[in-house]
């Protein structure tokens, strides 16, 4: 495989860091090289939080990426910030629950998913991040859904309920990505 990377951005509290780690763990478990890097505390509060995951089958150079191959954006600020920075024909996974516009660039591959609504319909509004992760994995096939589901289970080892709803949300996102990207 050729190396790839994805930036995940949204408000603090939307769980972007968490899905980044889950993706990283899934990749590791599949024997890949991986790095996860948070946009670590601007020592200031508010605004957006993001992390970037790099996955490769060769040793990874930079854990930091200026032009990502893909972005998972969960709020308006994030799409504004990261859409322009993606590589040509990059992938943009957009949470339509909180973002009321479409991608502006014509070259991008896009996945639209109403993550918050979908998650709520699965019984846990908090799992919108998992929906987004599912959509990304569905659109890219970068790791197997099984690996992700295992990573989710591990992450919520002590909260089986959360694990379950997370997996459900992940699957819904995964499925949603099948018709797309356009």
């Amino acid at each position, binding site marked *: 495989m050729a190396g790839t990377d994805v930036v995940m951005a949204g*408000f603090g509290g939307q769980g972007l860091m968490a899905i980044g780690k889950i993706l990283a763990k899934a990749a590791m478990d599949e024997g890949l090289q991986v790095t996860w890097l948070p946009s670590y505390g601007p020592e200031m509060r*508010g*605004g957006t939080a993001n992390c970037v995951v790099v996955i490769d089958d060769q040793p990874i150079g930079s854990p930091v990426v200026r032009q990502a191959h893909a972005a998972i954006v969960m*709020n*308006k*600020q994030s799409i504004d910030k990261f859409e322009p920075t993606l590589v040509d024909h990059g992938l943009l996974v957009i949470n339509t629950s*909180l973002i009321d516009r479409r991608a502006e660039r014509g070259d991008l591959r896009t996945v639209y998913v109403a993550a918050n609504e979908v998650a709520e319909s699965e019984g846990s509004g908090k799992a919108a991040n998992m929906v987004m992760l599912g959509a990304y994995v569905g659109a890219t096939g970068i790791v197997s859904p099984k690996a992700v589901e295992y990573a989710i289970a591990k992450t919520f080892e002590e909260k089986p309920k959360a694990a379950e709803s997370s997996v459900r949300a992940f699957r819904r996102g995964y499925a949603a990505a099948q018709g797309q990207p356009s």
Partner: protein
Amino acid sequence: MNRVVIDKDRCKACEMCVSVCNKELIEISDELNAKGYHPVELHDPEQCTACGLCALVCPEGGIAVYKAKKAG
């Protein structure tokens, strides 16, 4: 009528103003502001006594309160 002006762009939805208004006039709105918060809004403005408490506790300095002068 007394007037309470909330700077919605500054509001971070901390609900401090909500909790101090004796008249319970302030509520979180459905809007989302640029920072991603649901800013508060005033309902029943007629009931406002312009006591100023909401403005006093707002950490963002985001509330101004004006009292209508008595007629005459």
